[in-house]
């Protein structure tokens, strides 16, 4: 009974932390668009909290480079469990067109475990909402328990 209530509340109250990890802002615009009246993700209980200690889902846009990989790992560590990570856009998935740059580490999953990947340059807001709802299902299952691995 308790498990059911907790699972239901987890699915219905995902709080997001959006981190721009060196994106060109294309993906960020599409992500923020999901909060506007057109898409209104708040009807699913989604809140953009801007604080890792309150967040359940980490949305990451952009490539990871040598400078910001530490920030990304810190944000992930500061989130209390259960937590899931969504990587948004070609850059977040693999480094995108910046992949070969000397300062670029690659996609988000080179630093922290990623649960949901959204391809696209940029992906449409519908795809991002779809991914968040998929992430919510994974959150209910408890999310990944793995900690940050140093690479």
């Amino acid at each position, binding site marked *: 009974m308790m498990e059911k209530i907790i699972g239901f509340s987890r699915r219905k109250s995902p709080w997001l932390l959006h981190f721009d990890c060196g994106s060109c802002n294309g993906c960020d615009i599409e992500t923020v668009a999901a909060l506007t009246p057109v898409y209104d993700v708040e009807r699913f209980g989604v809140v953009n909290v801007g*604080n890792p200690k309150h967040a359940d889902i980490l949305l990451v846009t952009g490539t990871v480079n040598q400078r910001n990989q530490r920030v990304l790992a810190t944000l992930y560590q500061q989130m*209390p469990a259960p937590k899931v990570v969504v990587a948004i856009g070609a850059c977040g998935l693999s480094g995108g067109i910046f992949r070969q740059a000397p300062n670029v580490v690659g996609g988000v999953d080179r630093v922290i475990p990623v649960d949901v990947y959204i391809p696209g340059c940029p992906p449409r807001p519908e795809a991002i909402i779809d991914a968040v709802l998929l992430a919510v299902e994974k959150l209910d299952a408890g999310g990944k328990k793995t900690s940050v691995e140093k690479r």
Partner: protein
Amino acid sequence: MIGYPAKLLEILLTPLAAFLLAGMLFGLQRRLAARLQSRLGPPLWQPFLDLAKLLAKESRLTNPWLAVCPRLQLAAATVALVLFVLRSDLLVILFVHMAGGSFLVVGGLGSTSPYSQCAGQRQLWQMFAAETILFLLAAALYMTTGSFGLEPLYTLQQPLLLRLPLMFAAYLVALAIKMRKSPFDFAGADHSHQELVGGVLTDYSGRHLALAEVAHWFEVVLYLAFGTLFWTTDFAGGLLLALASFLTVNLLDNSTARLTWRWLLTRSWLAAVSLAVLNLLLLGV
């Protein structure tokens, strides 16, 4: 002797009723804000879902005070509410509530986060601004009934609102400050209206955050209960007045942009306190 079981029931039911009422009110205000922005908004019971989720989430502490503070604040708010329902002394209720509210400041300053530190300072200013107005309200009660007790209020022939209209305007400012509503949401920084991304609750997580949230709910219910004091001749009137105040503050929140804490102190607080004092002087005439 027959009164005791009824009183005990009242004491036990008050926190439960306040919890359910506050949850629905907070759900209503999120939905109201969404509708004003032509969005659908979350369901009415969303605050309860958020709470259940937070209770089941991992709770981390950067400082043991962060575990102590929300519990003490919640306890004080509950005691203040029960005292109100038992029609105790308004000054006692205010002091109990203030003692609990100060733990929000302690929690904020107890964290190492600069956001939390800054918001803790601002919370002090907000407490100062809101509590002065409430103490003036207590003074007005004394001048009309000759007592700080709530009981004599319920024997008045005509509603207090007719004698204290300016005080009611000042009360609305205090309510907006307590509800952490724009333009008075510096310390909470709840809705990203402010220049700070986080408020006093920055370092809280999991069940500590949930308890801090419930304490805030109870404090808002207490403030709305103060609103009913302006209409004590019949129950429905008081309830309607409190609901109207709640909706007014929400409309204000959705139609004002961010302001600075200097504005709070110099303009709105001075205006509210002047209105309250003017009303006190008029009572004396």
